[in-house]
């Protein structure tokens, strides 16, 4: 199976651990990945104002690139890219008039976009195309005794029209970590916002959110928290520095991308896990469990 892949900005920077661990895992699962040529920024947030069409141009242009590479679907990793591309796509599919305006605006493009590209998240590819039961067969290193709290954040599941699982109680990450042999820890904060882009100018709000979310995970015995969004990853991992300042009794907990957990189970080399990009070092707990 071959799939077109849209990385987005952060997968090439702060979230290189997300990209490298995904690419290694997909290779082990026999999936060929082709990075979309000439991809551009998705805009990161879906424009909510009804009259604001211009901000849908960037995501739709990426869907034109997908068509140009003779693909009918595009795989995203970052939850923000997934949400923005998918919502823009659904927006123009439901409103032919705005699609026409956007196409007119991009008159230099050779392809007239018709709303016919499918935007998928890596998790959907793993669940619906590779299938979890087949992943289970390829597990080399079962993640025995590793208690994983799976954190979804907002943009994988909301709004419910585009979410990849149940809006209030998603279980796709738990189902994946279970087939990898880990022990998922359910916790009530798994779909609660990490305060997102407030991290730039109001980091204290994020530090507080991180405290609430992570202590809830810890109360369920979690060894690590699995995430799927590079902004959640930054807020929950790197902002622990601020969390500890505010709450000296707070104990650091490592944050991993679900793809890193997958890569460990599939026995990808440690270089693909890029632990150097983490604030809280996941190596001690992974060594303790005999996983690295």
């Amino acid at each position, binding site marked *: 199976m071959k799939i077109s892949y849209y990385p987005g900005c*952060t997968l090439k920077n702060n979230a290189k651990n997300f990209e490298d661990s995904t690419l290694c895992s997909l290779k082990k699962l026999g999936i060929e990945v082709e990075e979309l040529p000439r991809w551009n920024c998705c805009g990161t947030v879906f424009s909510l104002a009804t009259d604001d069409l211009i901000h849908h141009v960037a995501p739709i242009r990426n869907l034109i690139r997908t068509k140009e590479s003779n693909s009918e679907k595009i795989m995203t990793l*970052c939850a923000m890219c997934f949400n923005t591309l998918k919502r823009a796509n659904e927006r123009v599919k439901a409103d032919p008039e705005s699609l026409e305006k956007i196409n007119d605006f991009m008159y230099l493009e050779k392809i007239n976009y018709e709303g016919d590209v499918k935007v998928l998240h890596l998790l959907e590819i793993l669940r619906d195309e590779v299938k979890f039961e087949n992943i289970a067969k390829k597990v080399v290193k079962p993640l025995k005794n590793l208690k994983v709290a799976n954190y979804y954040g907002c943009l994988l599941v909301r709004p419910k029209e585009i979410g990849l699982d149940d809006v209030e109680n998603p279980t796709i990450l738990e189902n994946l970590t279970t087939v990898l042999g880990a022990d998922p820890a359910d916790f009530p904060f798994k779909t609660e916002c990490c305060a*997102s882009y*407030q991290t730039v100018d109001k980091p204290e709000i994020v530090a507080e959110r991180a405290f609430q979310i992570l202590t809830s995970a810890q109360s369920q015995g979690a060894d690590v928290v699995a995430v799927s969004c590079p902004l959640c990853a930054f807020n929950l991992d790197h902002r622990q520095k601020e969390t500890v300042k505010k709450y000296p009794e707070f104990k650091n907990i490592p944050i991993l991308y679900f793809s890193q957990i997958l890569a460990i189970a599939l026995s990808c080399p440690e270089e693909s896990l890029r632990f150097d990009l983490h604030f809280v070092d996941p190596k001690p707990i992974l060594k303790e469990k005999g996983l690295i």
Partner: protein
Amino acid sequence: MRINLSKRNIKDPFVVKVEELSGQNLLACYQCGKCSAGCPAVSEMDILPNQIIRYAQLGLKNELLQSKSIWICASCFTCNARCPKGINIAEIIEAIRQILLRKREDHVNLNKLSDAEKGDVPPIAIISNLRKFTS
């Protein structure tokens, strides 16, 4: 606080603009408060999400435009997912932000942040912050 209710406020162009930009019917809200009950950011807010809609229904423009809450909401869409009337509250808050931003009243100036403050925040954080807080 004292709230001045008047027909003039209720018919203020501001109310029409909020409805237009958000695509929502403000009068659909019957103030059950479910949005505020589930909002993860209420502890930082001065006006709660259900109150934002009530204020908008009543045309309390200045109270809304000066509120801290509109800059606290990070569009996590929990309220939208739970509203029994199907109102998109996040879109209403976006509309109020847009009314200010479209007058070039930016909420952040990242040039004022030092390199240390900006730290190593990922590009998606910077871009989304600018998208939400600047014109």
